[in-house]
């Protein structure tokens, strides 16, 4: 990449750009965080056949639509990366804004879905299934919010042609958020 780099990205003991190594380290720790949560969910789910009754009340269409939204936002994120590699900061910023739009859509759908469920009495304290449901999807939702905010800053810089390498880093993070949802979707919505 031909553009100006912060000093940290110039130093590399591994041959991997430091920023990208850092984002993968973050993701390695995220794997343990989400892995622990989903692993705990899975073992309880397998030990409690009655959770299927609670899971039957989740709405597969909300989940499927949000999967579509996240897959699409991952697609625009990777196109932003492609644009950044060609040095086209404006195009990258535009595509990142589409990705943020995806994040906002995801959160709006999620809030409609949760409002509906909470009004029907399926709150986080209703039973252990719903506790896991809100904890796992909630933790994932926080990652969506964090990603969207950081993407805003990166898009702002990218539009001015600055720090274009960061477009790739936020993209890698965003795809991870997508991958987590790819697993949450069948675990929470499809297995009934």
């Amino acid at each position: 990449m031909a553009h100006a780099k912060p000093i940290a990205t110039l130093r590399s003991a591994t041959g991997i750009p430091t920023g990208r190594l850092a984002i993968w380290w973050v993701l390695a720790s995220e794997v343990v965080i989400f892995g622990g949560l989903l692993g705990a969910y899975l073992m309880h789910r397998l030990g409690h056949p009655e959770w299927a009754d609670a899971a039957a009340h989740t709405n597969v269409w909300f989940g499927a639509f949000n999967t579509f939204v996240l897959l699409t936002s991952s697609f625009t994120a990777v196109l932003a990366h492609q644009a950044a590699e060609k040095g086209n900061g404006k195009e990258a910023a535009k595509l990142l804004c589409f990705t943020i739009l995806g994040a906002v859509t995801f959160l709006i759908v999620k809030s409609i879905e949760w409002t509906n469920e909470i009004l029907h009495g399926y709150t986080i304290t209703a039973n252990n299934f719903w506790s896991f449901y809100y904890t796992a999807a909630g933790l994932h939702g926080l990652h969506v919010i964090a990603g969207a905010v950081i993407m805003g800053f990166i898009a702002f810089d990218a539009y001015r042609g600055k720090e274009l390498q960061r477009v790739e880093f936020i993209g890698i993070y965003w795809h991870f958020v997508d991958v987590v949802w790819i697993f949450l979707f069948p675990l929470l919505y499809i297995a009934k």
Partner: protein
Amino acid sequence: MSEHQEHHDEHHVNYKKIYFTLLGLLVVSVVGPFLGILWVTLLTAFGIALVKARLVINNFMHLKWEKRLMKWMLATSLVLMGIMFAGVAPDVMNHEGNNWENVAAKAAVARGVDGGEHAEEAGEEEETATEVVAAGFSAEQSFTLVCGTCHGSAGDGTGPAGAALDPPPADFTDPVFWETRDRDRIRIAIRDGAAAVGGSALMAPWGALYPDPDHLEQMVDYVISLGPNE
């Protein structure tokens, strides 16, 4: 896999093709489970999730082109996750072992299946619970299932899970026990736990199991019926 390949800025991935493949797989993973066949559901829901994740990780995150170090790093996280699961799952997924029994989990299964409309899943606990439900509420069966694990199904304090408890579970057949007990006290102990009447904190509150006051009274009657005077 191109593990030895250097990371290139241009990966020549057809992102659009990958994207539409992902959407196609999403449709299959939603439609598959509607067939209602267990193995089709598992395959379409979880098998396809793995395929989708792999497509995203390799082509969007470009892990395919990363150095081996990065893959080892992620693999370490996955292994740690596996160790956690393997270590904890046997205790969580089983509700009883040689010397222990998870009374709360069993009761939760029984209660959950009771209230549910989707009781078609297989499972030993569920079968037992369904039998209880089919017969309507029975204080005797509920006592055996819930109380009997510690107090013994005869109420003499010799249940398998009670052996290790200190103080030991109450013996309802002991006349001395009834010298200091009355109906109200038994009711409160069942509903709010024995600690609520100055007894052992190990006797948990079970009120949530008997939201119907009539069922709670039947439980009180049953406990009293175990006493020597009746």
